[in-house]
C-alpha cells in the first residue's frame, strides 16, 4: 500500500498558484526526496500533507487517511520536523520531548521512558537537561527529529532537515534518517541539496515553480541526461592532436577552455583504457584524467533550464541586501 498518495494537489495564495496540480505516490518504507529551489512549492506541499494548510484543489492521503477529511488520524500517524526546527529556547531538551509525548497522547510514564530512549538515540543524553537555547544548530535538528519520533510515526516528514548545517552534522542526520528507514519508517523529505537527495532517496521528485518536472530514482534521472564523459587535461600544444584522436573514439563535447578535451564515453569507466591507449599511441601527454558522471544538477538544468544551487545562492544574496 502506498504511504502517500497525491492527486492533482493545488494550492493558491490569492492569485499566485504555489503548487500547480502535482501527482505523486510514495510507497511504504521508501525515502522520497522533494528537490527544488526555495519558493518552488516544497514547503507548501509538505504543509498540505501534514494538515497545516488546506489544499485549494486536488486531494492527498497520508498513511491511508485523507489529509482534509481525516486530519486527526493523519496527525496521529505522522512525525514532522519542520524547517528551522520549531523549538522553544526556554525549555530543556528533555522537557520538550516529554511535552511532545503528551501532545501525541502518550501516558506520562511511557512518555518519560520514550523521551530518555530518544535522547539517547540522537546523542543528546548529556545535553538533555540544558535549555534548548544553548544548543548548536545540529543539536537542535537532532532534538527536533527526536520529537518527531516520539509516537513511532509510520510516515516521517522532514522539511529541509539539513539546511544551514555543517557537513558533519548533516552526515549525522543522514545516518539517523537511514536508520529510521531501515526500521520501516517511510520518509518524505524536501531538500535544496542535490547531494542529499542523491545520498538518501529511493525516489526523487524535482519540483520547480509548483510543478513536478521530473521523477524517478536518482540513477534513472541521471541516466536520462545521457552518458558520462572523460575530462582530459592535455599537455601544452597537444590539444589539436588530442582532439583529432578522440574524435575517432566518440563524441566530443564543447570544450571548457583551451587545455581540456571532453569526450563522451558510453560505457563509463570501462572506456577509459581504450582512450588512454589511443592517446598514448599518438604521443599525446595526458596530465590528468577525470570521469564525470551526470549529476542531479544536470537533470535539473535539463528539465528547467536553470541551475539549482547557483540560483539558490543568488536568491540568498538578494534577500540579504534587501532593505528591512
Amino acid at each position: 500500500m502506498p504511504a502517500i498518495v497525491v492527486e492533482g494537489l493545488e494550492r493558491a495564495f490569492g492569485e499566485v498558484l504555489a503548487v500547480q496540480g502535482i501527482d505523486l505516490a510514495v510507497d511504504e518504507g521508501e525515502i522520497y526526496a522533494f528537490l527544488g529551489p526555495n519558493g518552488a512549492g516544497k514547503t507548501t506541499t509538505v504543509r498540505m500533507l501534514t494538515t497545516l494548510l488546506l489544499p485549494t484543489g486536488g486531494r492527498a492521503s497520508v498513511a491511508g487517511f485523507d489529509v482534509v477529511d481525516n486530519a486527526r488520524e493523519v496527525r496521529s500517524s505522522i512525525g514532522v520536523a519542520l524547517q528551522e526546527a520549531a523549538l522553544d529556547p526556554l525549555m530543556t531538551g528533555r522537557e520538550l520531548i516529554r511535552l511532545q509525548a503528551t501532545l501525541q497522547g502518550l501516558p506520562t510514564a511511557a512518555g518519560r521512558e520514550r523521551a530518555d530512549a530518544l535522547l539517547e538515540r540522537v546523542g543528546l543524553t548529556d545535553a538533555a537537561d540544558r535549555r534548548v537555547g544553548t544548543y548548536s544548530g545540529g543539536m537542535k535538528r537532532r532534538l527536533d527529529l527526536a520529537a518527531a519520533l516520539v509516537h513511532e510515526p509510520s510516515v516521517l516528514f522532514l522539511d529541509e532537515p539539513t539546511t544551514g548545517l555543517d557537513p558533519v552534522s548533516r552526515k549525522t542526520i543522514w545516518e539517523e534518517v537511514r536508520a529510521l528507514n531501515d526500521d520501516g519508517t517511510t520518509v518524505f523529505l524536501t531538500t535544496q541539496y542535490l547531494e542529499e537527495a542523491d545520498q538518501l532517496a529511493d525516489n526523487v521528485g524535482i519540483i520547480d515553480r509548483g510543478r513536478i518536472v521530473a521523477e524517478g530514482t536518482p540513477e534513472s534521472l541521471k541516466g536520462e541526461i545521457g552518458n558520462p564523459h572523460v575530462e582530459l587535461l592535455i599537455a601544452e600544444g597537444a590539444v589539436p592532436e588530442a582532439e583529432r584522436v578522440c574524435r575517432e573514439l566518440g563524441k566530443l563535447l564543447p570544450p571548457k577552455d583551451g587545455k581540456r578535451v571532453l569526450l563522451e564515453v558510453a560505457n563509463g569507466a570501462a572506456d577509459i583504457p581504450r582512450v588512454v591507449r589511443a592517446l598514448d599511441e599518438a604521443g599525446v601527454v595526458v596530465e590528468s584524467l577525470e570521469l564525470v558522471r551526470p549529476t542531479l544538477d544536470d537533470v535539473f538544468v535539463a528539465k528547467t533550464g536553470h541551475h539549482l544551487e547557483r540560483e539558490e545562492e543568488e536568491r540568498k544574496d538578494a534577500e540579504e541586501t534587501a532593505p528591512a
Partner: protein
Amino acid sequence: MEAALPAWRTNLATIAALIARAKNELVRVPGAAIPGVLAPTIFFLGLNGVFGALTGLSGFDTGSYESFIVPVSMLQGAGFTGAAAGVNLARDYEGGWVDRLLVSPAPRWVLLAGNVLAASARSLVPATFVLAIGFLIGVQWPGVDGLLVCYLMVAATAAVAACWGSMLALRFKSQAAAPLMQAGMMALVLLTPAYAPLELLQPWLETVARINPLTQVVEAARQGFVGGVTWADTWPGLLALAGLLAALGALALREMRRTNV
C-alpha cells in the same frame, strides 16, 4: 504502542503540559514578570495621584479613590497579561512553534485552553502585586468574599484577553498585531466606570459603558472595596465574562481551524 489513555485524561495532561511551558516565560526569563507588574502599578499609583481629588464630587460611594481604582488596575493587569499571551502566541507562530502544536492530534480547544488558562494563572501575579501596594497606601480591606470575587473577575478577564489576543495572533500570525491586542483590552477595561461612577461619566462614555459588558465586571470586582458583596452585583459580572469567554473562545477556535484543516 502503549495502551491509549481515555481522551479526557490525555486532554488534561496536554493542558497541564502547556501551562507548565508557559510558566517558563515567567520563571526562566530574568525580569520577565516586571513589565506585566509595572504597567498596572504605575497606572494605579499614577491615576490615584492625579485623579484622587475626584472623590470630592458627589456620586462617589467611597472617599478613598485608591479603593475605588485598585480593582480597575488589577483588571487592567489581567488585560495586559492576557493580551501578552496573544503576543507570545504570535511570536511562537513566527518561530514555527505553533506548527508543532497544530500538527499534533490534540483537539484544537485543548491547545487553546492551555494558552488561555496559563494567562489566567499568570494574571494573579500583577493583581496581587497591585493589591499589596494598594493595601500599603490605604486601600480598604474588601472582605474575604470581596477578595474572592475580585480575583475571580481578574482570572476570567485574563482568560477573555487571552482569547482575544490568540484570535488576533492566529489571524495575523505576526507580532505586528500586538498593539491591537493591547489597545483592544485597554479600551474594553477602561471604557467602563473605571475612573468614576457611571453617573459622573461624560454622556458619551456613559452610553458606551452601559453597553460594555466589562462594566458589570468592574462593578463586581469593585463591590467589596467600596461596600458589601451582594449576589445582585456579582452575577452580572459572571454572566458578562462567561458570554465574552464563549464568544471570543469560539472566534479564536475558528481562526485556529481556518489556519489549518
